[in-house]
């Protein structure tokens, strides 16, 4: 254990959390997606090193974990901001001006999509239907719906702590 810990990209507390995910459900592997979600939260992305350590903890081949980490849109190979902002461009949101919201996000945050602001606080991206089509164009911050992506709502993102 200690030998592996030295190489671990995680803090001892984080190691504990990951181990917790292996025990949370009736089968070890049922916790893998949640474990990777934790890694994404901590590192704002999934690196091969992190995936490799997760693979060790779950006793899975690296290829398996890397395959999963590269399959799901929640996991990124680019570093997101601390606040990850998503705007939906599904049909209902498109009909209500998601294009305009995207332009407004780019202008207000001053970075293109999938790139964090220089202070690392914020990043934005387009997302597929967020299940909030009645609040189109739906705006999400760290998996929490914040309502329609109006100019005012987007302007407020910069004040998020």
């Amino acid at each position, binding site marked *: 254990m200690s030998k592996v810990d030295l190489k671990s990209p995680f803090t001892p507390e984080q190691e504990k959390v990951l181990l917790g995910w292996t025990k949370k459900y*009736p089968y070890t592997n049922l916790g*893998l*997606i*949640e474990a*990777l979600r934790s890694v994404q939260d901590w590192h704002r992305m999934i690196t091969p090193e992190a995936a490799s350590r997760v693979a060790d903890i779950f006793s899975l081949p690296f290829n398996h974990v890397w395959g999963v980490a590269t399959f799901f849109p929640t996991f990124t190979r680019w570093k997101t901001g601390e606040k990850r902002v998503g705007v939906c461009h599904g*049909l209902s949101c498109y009909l209500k001006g998601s294009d305009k919201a995207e332009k407004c996000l780019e202008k207000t945050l001053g970075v293109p999509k999938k790139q964090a602001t220089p202070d690392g606080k914020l990043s934005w991206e387009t997302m*597929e239907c967020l*299940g909030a*089509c*009645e609040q189109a164009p739906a705006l999400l911050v760290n998996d929490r719906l914040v309502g329609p992506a109006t100019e005012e709502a987007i302007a407020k993102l910069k004040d998020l702590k």
Partner: protein
Amino acid sequence: MTKILTKHFDEPKLHELETYRRLGGYEALKKALGMERKALQEEVVKSNLRGLGGAGFPVGFKWSTVPPEDKVPGPRYVVVNCDESEPGCFKDRVLVTRAPHQLLEGLLIASYVVGSKDSFIFIRGEYQNQYDILEKAVAEAKAAGLLGDVNIHLMRGAGAYISGLDTALLETMEGKKAWPRQPPPFPTVAGLMGKPTVVNNVETLSMLPFIVREGGEAFAKIGSAKNGGTVLFSISGHVEKEGVYEVPMGTKLRDVLALAGGVKGGKKLKAVIPGGTSMPPLLEKDLDVALDFDAIKAAGTMLGAGGMIVLDETVDAVEVAHNIERFLTHESCGQCTPCREGSNWSERILERMLEGKGEKGDTENLARVGENITGKVICALGDTVGMVTRAWTSKFPDDFKKRVPNNG
């Protein structure tokens, strides 16, 4: 109009156990636990409850395909599918937000019938608010001793639309890529970790307390033939009042639209997508179609998950088709070549049409690509790719003609 799921939605604190119980919540569970499991299943068969996550499969029958414990011993599971992510669909989010205990009660009834001691709620990761609500509701129910010997586990997805398809959902839960499985075996025989598993949608399970309380026949009477009870429509797009509306199965499209205040700004209706963007649209002339699984099929489309999108006359069918194909390309799991490549081709053809670079024969190409996918892939997403282009090109030929210079 009869309401089952949204009956108490005016109660301010319906999401709290105390309120839910004051209104008779968990009485059905008590009644269920005093009944024979077989008898309960019979009630559900009698109710004509259909799976409301999109497939419309009769729920009682689905449960009956779980092998009996003496034939296949060992654990069996119930999994709640709370992963709606098709554009237009948001009723499960509203149900979980407003009435989490209604879902839990339904889940506990189903767990008893199926014999599940570990039951799961798989919720899309983007529903963090709803996850918190459910977590609190489960804790409340547990503290009140309502869970009995059932463990309810919450588990989040990671942003893939395909995870909402039952077999892909099970793969996701098992910590794998969300690649749909090719049945048979069906999940009720070999589901989570190869064990018999019933996967039911949030809305479906939320109907169970009513069915147990009032009886299957009472539920069946509310709906239309072979389509019991009510159904929720989530309505968005160009309507006056977007939101979730509950109506008896078989209600006419015209009446459902009226509930949402009709087309916004008094404009003319161009089309209604009835059940989520992969469903072929209905037109003005279809306003008298009855909305249940069977009648709508006769009208050439599907009820899906009740995600209704209303489009006014200003909308261009090519833009719509492009938006949907872009979505499907993004969400194709990549397992079958015809789907992976064909969705992408369809998107690109539509993209060049939008850019004014449409070529002669593009509309036919779209049809050809679609035909080469349909029936040659593992899951319904691939079939949808062709269905979408076929529907939009055939219903709005003029919009497509305009995009192809010199098409004659």
